């Protein structure tokens, strides 16, 4: 990957990739692997981008797809080893404790719900969320309300 491409087309959107990768990983090592894989896939599929959506939307979609694929692959590995290291503070967790708690709660959601709430928190419109995930925009609002309810319960300690 040329340094120019990384600097101009990926780095300005690194925040998106980081936020998504953090939601799908439990340790720093996995996070870095996911981040690198997403960057690699963006670089690989750069020629497929036809400008029909914004570049940032394209990155959201690609990041989510890569994370979901890696998650599936890693789940298969988990049958062999059930060890999932916790994200510790010195291994790259966020400095803000509330944010860490929120991430922990998000990680308890299903893969799709994680994607929906991440996009919602990034202030994407229902239309964009539906487009990125490939669902019907009519159901997004209800889904988000349910996810938020669940997140609140998890954060309040009502749900394990």
């Amino acid at each position, binding site marked *: *990957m*040329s340094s120019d491409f*990384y600097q101009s087309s990926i*780095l300005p959107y*690194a*925040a998106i*990739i*980081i*936020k998504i990768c953090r939601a799908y990983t439990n340790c720093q090592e996995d*996070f*870095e*692997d996911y*981040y*690198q894989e997403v*960057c*690699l896939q963006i*670089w*690989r599929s750069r020629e497929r981008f036809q400008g029909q959506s914004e570049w940032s939307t394209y990155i959201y979609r690609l990041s989510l797809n890569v994370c979901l694929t890696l998650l599936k692959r890693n789940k298969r590995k988990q049958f062999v080893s059930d060890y999932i290291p916790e994200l510790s503070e010195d291994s*790259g967790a*966020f*400095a*803000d404790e*509330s*944010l860490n*708690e*929120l991430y922990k709660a998000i990680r308890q959601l299903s893969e799709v719900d994680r994607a929906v709430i991440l996009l919602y*928190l990034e202030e994407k419109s229902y239309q964009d969320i539906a487009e990125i995930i490939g669902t019907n925009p009519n159901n997004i609002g209800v889904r988000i309300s349910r996810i*938020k309810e669940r*997140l*609140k319960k998890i*954060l*309040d300690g009502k749900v394990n």
Partner: protein
Amino acid sequence: MEKSIESIWKEGFLRDEALVAPKINNLYSQKSQQIIEKLGRMYKINLWSIAIFAGLYLIFSIWAQIVWSGIGVAGLLYWLVYISMKMSTELENLDQSQDSYHYLKAYDDWIQLCFERYIKIYRFLYPLLIGIGLSGMLFMQPRPFYEQPWVYSINGGYEPYLFMGLPVIWLGAIWGYALIFGIFARPIYKLDVKLIYGRTFDKLKGIIADMEKLRK
């Protein structure tokens, strides 16, 4: 809960250090490791399969009273396993401390080298295995099913043309057939390798090609 999840999200990310991108380096290290491990596993399984088959054939040959064929085939196969294991120890000499690209290139070069060596080996091994194996089949006498060698029992009492007590036409046909395998050892071995390792080799080539693009 005091704050809404929206405000936790927004405020949490206001700190710059929350979004420091990891350094992109050694991009393919994990992939390289995975593919090398996979090839290593496949190679081991392949060698084990050959060794097990050789053992089974030896047992069969004792039962079928063609021990000479069993020893011949099993001996050749065990020799092949030994040579293959010896070749695989060369992998230990590859410098694993080098970057993924150079390591994969070195690994690929080793595969190509092995491929050429195996062609030379199979040029003799294919005819010998087929010749000894099929000749053995001619003389097998698995009791209680056959009271005399199989070649004399075809169609209930067939008598082949014998020269010095050997069914020379049958043997000639078998060794002629075996010779064809020796002549076409390269394409046959290529097909053999493609069937077993094809997809993994393609992946390895794909990774190397990708890395070459990345290096530009």
